[in-house]
């Protein structure tokens, strides 16, 4: 090769030798011109050399726009050197959506089918490297065949397995995971361990998503482990420092953790034996670092599996003892893994006793020199905390917080806050701890933490006085964090009067303390303080002049929010004494409805499932793990609900959550599983809805903030509803007093009786949601049909009576003129009785086709009764139409005006 590529070597030498970029560019331009010339002349002998030069140029970062076609042709060459360069060029020069790849697919397939395994391998490389969707679709089948074929060489099988893994990761949909499961799993029995390792990697990826289809692999994995660990059946080349293929062992042990423990006793005992042997092997550490590493890798995975199988088994006991040894090891990596695995144990174990024995060591680990070890120690402490040791652990964490890394603090604060709340033995302790937390690590305390304190204080009556005192004491510190000022402001505002009579807590002192902090705070905190002051105006008349003075001053600040509050409070405070408006406004806050703490959500959000390999557990005790499952199922449920996430249709008026019925009107009854959102109710809402049922346009909903108008048009089975959203309050995304329009296209697919529901959410001060029934009824999709008398009655009779007839008799009020005036579907005077009114229409539905409908209204003027008969080819339709038509006639007891 070296001799045949002399030109290339020279070219590379020239470029390496170029002193400045310009020279390099010149050399490349010259070479490219030469190559273009050669390609043009179609010299076919040394194309691969030129393509090699192009590849080199491309690698240097220059554009390569010639030679693609030549590369494609090289692939189908019979010479290895040419084929290899061709494949190299294809994988390097062409991106996965390149048009040229279509030309290559056939050559690649031919190479996959070839008997020469070197060609097979080149083709597999190309597929794995390019991994385009089209290629995956066309060739996944062939790769799979190569994998399962008994005639394939071992190294081809290995490559095929890995290629399939790559394709699965990129395009999971092209792999028929379930159909291929048995054949793929059967390869786990291959006599070559290399193949087994590759296939196990593939199965690990597939099994995560298709647990059931791949469940056969469970016994195979156990079997293989048994052979490796106990039977010592493996080729000598696969022993790594005397550990039998640690990579395979780790993979198998991890794979087993995806599945629930087996029911089969034989399998269980085999697995038990394996785990026991692994743990026994590690009983005495060896001197050799590599050997240790391999052994530990297997051991930690084995412990993970043991925990997964049964937390009460004696194996776990052994594991705990081993882990205890590891967490005090000299090696950082071992300590890390030990703590991590112990956190796993703590997260799953029934009893934390074995872990608590090592509490002191774990707390020591918080001061480890390596930050990732510290992190793990924190996780473990969080997981192992229960009501017995909570005070100790939280105390320790608080002490550590002051010296902890900044990167760690936010998470620590959240964890401390959660633990404190969860395991609080007394509320006093809780309030003490949290306030201490806020003053120690103010910057890292999220808003959720202090919201939660306020919630709990307000909801717990006997805590209020104590909380006020403690907050006051904490505020006395020379420098206080803003969050603390907020908590203090809120609590003293609400409950300051409870402690006002004690010495040292007089209103004037409270006021002075709090106000002295206000100048260091941002506007949001100051506005909170203003609210505190107005509450004090109510309860402490003695400091009213000072407070009013402050309001007066704040009336001239530039910040709009502050200014508005100050103006309002000033007006409130300056009302006459005997007015009871102020006390009413400044009532104590009612208790909050019980809520789930937002803290956990915050913590979970911080972690996120970023790892490609799914973890089978999370930090934070047994309940947390149970919770996680519940959440997961909930997420799945809400996904299947078919409700689109609130999409940003118009900025803050976000989340015009078009629940499923809104999109396909008639689909509503079908989705039994999705609970329709509860529609807003109210007399006026019903009235609006009713009106719109018979009108094309009008107001659907209106309150102080928003007005929803509707304009609709129907044509056959299609309908178009324009929703006008009007904003009735000042500045917002939708300008004040203006409207924004949202168009819905509605298609009537089949019969339906419940109107679709529109869920509208928007931000106006707070997040608000309104669910409205849309005035879309089956009658909207009727189209008027002209029939003459004969036709009408012929059809009338054809449809016949019940069940396709619906009839009702109801009393009517006659209009002053003694006439009924109906426009809808009016068919003129067809009926022999001139007073009777008939109508005909066709209901268009896209899936169920058309349904004809005939209507006959027979008023009896004397009896003031009216008989409405509706016949249609579908009994449901008859009933529904009857219901809808008779409603305005009966309910209002007067004929509709149009």
């Amino acid at each position, binding site marked *: 090769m070296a001799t045949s590529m002399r030109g290339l070597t020279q070219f590379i030498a020239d470029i390496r030798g170029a*002193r*400045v970029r310009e020279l390099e560019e*010149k*050399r490349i*331009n*010259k070479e*490219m*011109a*030469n190559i*273009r*010339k050669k*390609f*043009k002349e179609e010299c076919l002998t040394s194309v691969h050399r030129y393509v090699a030069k192009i590849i080199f140029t491309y690698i240097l970062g220059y554009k390569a*726009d*010639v030679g*693609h*076609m*030549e590369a494609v042709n090289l692939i189908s060459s019979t010479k290895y050197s040419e084929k290899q360069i061709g494949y190299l060029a294809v994988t390097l020069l062409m991106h996965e959506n*390149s048009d*040229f790849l279509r030309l290559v697919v056939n050559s690649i397939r031919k190479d996959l089918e070839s008997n020469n395994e070197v060609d097979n391998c080149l083709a597999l490389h190309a597929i794995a490297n390019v991994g385009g969707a089209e290629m995956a679709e066309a060739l996944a089948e062939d790769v799979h065949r190569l994998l399962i074929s008994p005639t394939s060489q071992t190294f081809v099988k290995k490559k095929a397995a890995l290629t399939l893994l790559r394709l699965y990761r990129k395009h999971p949909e092209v792999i028929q995971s379930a159909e291929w499961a048995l054949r793929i799993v059967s390869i786990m029995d291959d006599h070559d361990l290399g193949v087994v390792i590759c296939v196990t990697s593939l199965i690990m990826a597939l099994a995560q998503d298709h647990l059931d289809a791949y469940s056969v692999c469970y016994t195979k994995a156990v079997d293989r482990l048994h052979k490796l660990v106990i039977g010592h059946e493996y080729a000598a080349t696969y022993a790594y420092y005397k550990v039998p293929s640690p990579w395979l062992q780790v993979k198998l042990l991890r794979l087993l953790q995806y599945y629930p423990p087996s029911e089969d006793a034989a399998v269980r005992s085999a697995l038990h034996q394996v785990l026991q042997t692994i743990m026994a092997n590690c009983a005495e550490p060896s001197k050799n670092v590599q050997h240790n590493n391999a052994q530990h890798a297997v051991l930690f995975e084995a412990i993970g599996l043991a925990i997964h199988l049964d937390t009460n088994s004696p194996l776990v006991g052994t594991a705990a003892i081993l882990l205890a040894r590891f967490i005090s090891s000299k090696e950082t990596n071992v300590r890390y893994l030990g703590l991590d695995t112990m956190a796993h144990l703590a997260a799953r174990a029934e009893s934390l006793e074995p872990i608590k024995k090592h509490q002191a060591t774990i707390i020591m680990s918080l001061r480890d020199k390596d930050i990732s070890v510290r992190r793990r120690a924190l996780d473990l402490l969080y997981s192992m905390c229960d009501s017995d040791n909570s005070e100790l652990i939280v105390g320790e964490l608080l002490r550590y917080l002051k010296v902890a890394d900044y990167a760690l603090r936010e998470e620590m604060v959240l964890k401390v806050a959660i633990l404190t709340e969860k395991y609080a033995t007394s509320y006093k302790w809780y309030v003490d701890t949290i306030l201490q937390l806020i003053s120690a690590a103010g910057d890292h305390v999220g808003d959720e933490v202090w919201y939660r304190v306020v919630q709990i204080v307000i909801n717990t009556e006997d805590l209020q006085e104590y909380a006020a005192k403690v907050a006051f004491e904490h505020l006395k510190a020379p420098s206080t964090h803003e969050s603390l000022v907020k908590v203090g402001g809120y609590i003293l505002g609400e409950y300051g009067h409870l402690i006002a009579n004690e010495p040292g807590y007089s209103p004037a002192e409270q006021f002075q303390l709090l106000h002295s902090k206000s100048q260091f705070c941002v506007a949001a905190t100051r506005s909170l303080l203003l609210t505190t002051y107005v509450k004090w105006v109510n309860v402490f008349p003695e400091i009213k002049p000072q407070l009013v003075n402050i309001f007066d001053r704040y009336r001239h600040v530039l910040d709009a929010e502050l200014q508005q509050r100050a103006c309002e409070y000033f007006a409130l405070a300056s009302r006459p004494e005997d007015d009871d408006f102020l006390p009413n406004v400044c009532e104590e806050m009612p208790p909050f409805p019980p809520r789930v703490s937002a803290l956990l959500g915050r913590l979970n959000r911080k972690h996120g499932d970023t790892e490609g390999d799914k973890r089978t557990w999370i930090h934070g005790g047994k309940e947390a793990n149970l919770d996680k499952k519940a959440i997961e199922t909930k997420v799945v449920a809400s996904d299947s609900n078919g409700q689109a996430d609130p999409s940003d249709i118009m900025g803050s008026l976000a989340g015009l959550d078009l629940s499923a019925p809104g999109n396909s009107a008639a689909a509503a009854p079908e989705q039994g599983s999705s609970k329709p959102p509860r529609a807003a109710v109210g007399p006026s809402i019903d009235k609006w809805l009713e009106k719109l049922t018979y009108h094309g346009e009008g107001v659907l909903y209106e309150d102080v903030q928003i007005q929803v108008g509707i304009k609709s048009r129907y044509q056959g089975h299609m309908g178009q509803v324009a929703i006008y959203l009007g904003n009735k309050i000042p500045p917002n995304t939708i300008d004040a007093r203006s409207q924004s329009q949202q168009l819905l296209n509605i298609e009537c697919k089949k019969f339906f009786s419940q109107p679709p529901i529109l869920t509208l959410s928007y931000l106006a001060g707070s997040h608000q949601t309104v669910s409205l029934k849309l005035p879309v009824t089956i009658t909207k999709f009727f189209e008027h049909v002209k029939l003459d008398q004969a036709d009408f009655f012929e059809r009338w009779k054809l449809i016949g009576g019940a069940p396709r007839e619906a009839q009702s008799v109801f009393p009517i009020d006659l209009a002053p003129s003694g006439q009924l005036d109906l426009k809808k579907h009016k068919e003129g005077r067809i009926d022999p009785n001139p007073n009777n009114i008939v109508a005909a229409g066709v209901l268009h539905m896209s899936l169920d086709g058309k349904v004809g409908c005939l209507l006959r209204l027979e008023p009896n003027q004397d009896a003031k009764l009216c008989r409405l008969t509706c016949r249609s080819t579908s009994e449901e339709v008859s009933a529904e139409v009857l219901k809808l038509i008779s409603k305005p006639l009966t309910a209002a007891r007067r004929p509709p005006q149009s």
Partner: protein
Amino acid sequence: MLSAFFIFNQKGEVLISRLYRTDFKRSIADVFRIQVVSNSDVRSPIITLGSTSFFHVRINNLYVVAVTKTNANAALVFEFCYRFINICKSYFGKIDEEAIKNNFALVYELIDEICDFGYPQNSEIDTLKSYITTESVVSQNIPADESSKITSQATGAISWRRPDVKYKKNEAFVDVIETVNLSMSNVLRAEVDGHIMMRAYLSGTPECKFGLNDKLVIDKSQGGGGGDAVELDDCRFHQCVRLNEFDATRTISFIPPDGEFELMGYRSTSNVKLPLRVIPTVTEVGSGQVNYDVVVKANFSNKLAATNVVLRIPTPLNTTTADCKVATGKAKYAPSENVMIWKIPRIQGGQECIFSATAILTTSVTNRQVWARPPIDVDFQVLMFTASGLIVRFLKVFEKTSYQSIKWVRYLTKASGGYQIRF
């Protein structure tokens, strides 16, 4: 003003580093290296990062960089950089990496002399040469009066000239050198960048008066001087020219420095006479071939001649071969630059030369883009011709001894890189 001055080589290595003030550390050089030298996107000569501005001039693969934290006058900073380059050229012939490395002690001496605490000082080459010498000097040997002369000159009213210059033959050479920048399909932009260089070998302290065309409009705001007047957009003078006199009476009078200096620089954008007309016809035949027909016409008196004419005619990027046919000069395809180069040693005034070529393109190209058709680039020189029409009417020399002096005037119009014709 300047806080630091650096010279970098092509790779961004610092060759010369001088900090004039304390507001920077040496590490500021790294910032320039990262932000400018290794960032190929940067084309602007001024980069401002935060409150720091880097002014750089590239010459022969060197970066001459001035750094400032203040709002310095950019024109002044660049003038300083170019002046430094000229001084270097005058001291050691050429300026490139090797010359700087070989003379680094001298360079430090020079930059310390021409700039003090960031303020540019006397940078007159002849004056500098009187006390910064390249030969070794034994300090005792300098006579006291010699050094005091240097002092009096450097601090005196005419810092650019020593009083005791004596020549046997009193001569003055004036060179008017004009560079034409042109961009045309029809004329989009034509401008002349002119320099009047003077070499004065005159005894004593001569008083010179210099006259240009009769119909000369300097500064357009005064109103046009008729259709055929020569208009100069802006001009700048050597420090020896008495500006107040120029402002009052429009006469250029000065006491010249001894030796070579640039008396005046100017720019002209109106009534530019283009010495060479180039008429290109380029047709793309299908996607595989491009035909060229280029005609060059010499547009000046047939007594004059253009020399060293080089046309660079771009070819598409996917050209395989190009076949050129010319009657005068030589033409060949240079694939390394994607151009055809047509060299004509001499074109007499009024003459016409014709070039025709066919470029064959390869068609098997991926992502084929439309050819951007870069402009044809023409380089040439025409002696005794000024594109702006500027003419030196007279140069009078008055001296106390009233000796006779000989004056020589030469004109040169040239183009190098800026004379571009689009097609």
